């Protein structure tokens, strides 16, 4: 087992003539929070999509521990232990909150496919209690029987976090977990993410909000125009002139 849980080596991604990612190298240590920041269109989401198997890289490879992720389907990558929350929450709007959290729990237990209709959901006590526990964790237990689609955006985001947490992923990818949230919602989410961090879960987080980044990240990579221009501790990144330039002297302060 290598010392890095995520190992992205020499990854390129071209869309026709556009080079979205060039020569990306990213190593994330187990149990740390690694933030990827950068201006819009820098290729942050593309990089995430390459890691989870939504996009195939044009060159290079991605390792999770010792396992090669490149060329695998998203569901296979998830089964290996990579969970992801999306920029816009991807949940099951027509199911109740409780059911939303139960589905990933079944994935964890049953693998890619299992046909089982002898047992009723009602008697799946273990899964249900697990799901209720998760909802309690993110503060949504009071709404467990409500339809997920009827919740606010912040609640949907927390629900999605609970769904992913229930799978105990080795690597947790978060694409702008606080985008479009009100300030108090953002703070709640930061608290939640800090608590998760204490459990030793490795996270890669894409974020625009520097308040979030600097309160969570152990290391930061700065992406601009498809390339990593700087990597280091928050302190190093904050003082790096190239970063200031990429952000036009703006947000990084």
């Amino acid at each position, binding site marked *: 087992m290598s010392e890095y849980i995520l190992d992205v080596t020499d990854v390129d991604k071209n869309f026709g003539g556009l080079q979205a990612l060039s020569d990306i190298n990213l190593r994330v240590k187990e149990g740390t929070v690694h933030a990827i920041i950068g201006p819009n269109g820098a290729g942050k989401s593309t990089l995430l999509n390459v890691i*989870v198997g939504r996009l195939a890289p044009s060159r290079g490879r991605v390792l999770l521990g010792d396992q090669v992720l490149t060329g695998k*389907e*998203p*569901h296979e990558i*998830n*089964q290996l232990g990579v*969970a*992801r929350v999306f920029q816009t929450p*991807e*949940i*099951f*709007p*027509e*199911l*109740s909150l*409780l*059911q939303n959290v*139960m*589905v*990933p729990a*079944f*994935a*964890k237990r*049953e*693998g*890619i*496919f*299992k*046909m*089982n*209709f*002898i*047992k*009723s*959901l*009602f*008697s*799946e006590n273990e*899964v*249900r209690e697990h799901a209720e526990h998760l909802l309690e964790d993110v503060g949504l237990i009071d709404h467990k*029987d*409500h*339809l997920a*689609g*009827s919740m606010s955006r912040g609640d949907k985001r927390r629900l999605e976090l609970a*769904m992913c947490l229930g*799978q105990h992923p080795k690597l947790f990818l978060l694409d702008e977990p606080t985008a479009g949230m009100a300030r108090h919602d953002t703070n709640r989410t930061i608290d939640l993410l800090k608590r998760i961090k204490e459990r030793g879960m490795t996270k890669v987080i894409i974020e625009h909000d520097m308040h979030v980044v600097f309160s969570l990240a152990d290391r930061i990579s700065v992406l601009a125009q498809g390339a990593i221009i700087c990597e280091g501790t928050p302190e190093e990144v904050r003082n790096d002139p190239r970063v200031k330039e990429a952000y036009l002297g703006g947000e990084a302060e």
Partner: protein
Amino acid sequence: MSNTKIVSPKKDMIFMAILSAVVLTMPLWLQPFGAAYPDLMQKFMIFGIFAIGYNILFGLTGYLSFGHAAFLGVGSYTAVWSFKLLSMNVIPALIFGTVLSGLFALAIGFVSLRRSGIYFSILTLAFAQMSYNLAYSVLTPITNGETGLQLEQADPRVLDRMSGIVADGSLPTPNLFGIEGIGYSGFYICAALMLISFFIYLRIFRSPFGLKLRAIKSNQNRMGYTGFSTRPYLMTAFVISGMYAGLAGSLLAVTDPLAGAERMQWTASGEVVLITILGGVGTLIGPLLGAGIIKYFENIFSAFNDTVLLNAFSFLPDWLAHPVASLVGLFVGEGWHLTLGLVFMLIVIFLPGGIMEGISRLSRLVTNRGKSDSHENKEKEQTSAGEV
């Protein structure tokens, strides 16, 4: 009851008991509606099976198949062949009909499920029309083409002859160890099978498997990132619903042992879509209600003809009675599909959740009048089309 609740098996057993009682006493309570004759009640059961099976696919996964009549047809042909070659006993006919339809669904599903949405619908439609045309022309040795596949005196019926049952004089009727597949006994055979099918269907709805199918309908993208491969799930749902259609097709042959190609035509596929939407897509008993209502009204409306209409409007002056009768005549008899189309349009526009949505709206209206303060809470729960 809402879709979001996890229902206890005990409640389901009570529900099953009530449903069984309602179904088995149909010959009594359908009397006042003039629908208590065996042929029609058999149709209620058979199309009920067809529709609940279809609902496993369409209601749970959201995949709209326009080719389910093909499975119905395969079931019918297989059952008639089983009567001809093996035995007039319905058991082999039903088993072969169901299994063969399942295999057929496996093949069609394998190709069609590579696409989703409208492309999936078109692929299934194309397959069904292909099957129809094959049955109509190329496969005449198997299907007897235009005339339809029928029983004959000289059929081998190997198993029957071995056990010394020989048809003398008239054509033999399908039977379950002597219980005939026609008349009231035929209805009870269909009803028993419908209840068994419904029980399995209920279990699927309540199981983790059913939850995953609904999750696929709700957000297939998330399903992938949750570690599920959606294809095998869709495939299983498709094959199960194909087998339900095959069972329904075999039962059609049990109650009336002939099979024609028109059973596979796209209008037949469209009918089951209509039944399911009218009753309530994704609800438990919606498809059963839809099947009952459509078959009932088809029966009533088709019976009207010009003479009956003229009699009905005889209270009008002569110069008015004729035009009114001929105008109304457009909507009944042969033209009853026009009425069906209108009703269908009204349902889709005003009650997209079908009859079941109507029922749950009504019941909410009644309960909310009692306690208007809990209104806000109710709103948030958004109890969609009642599940039971």
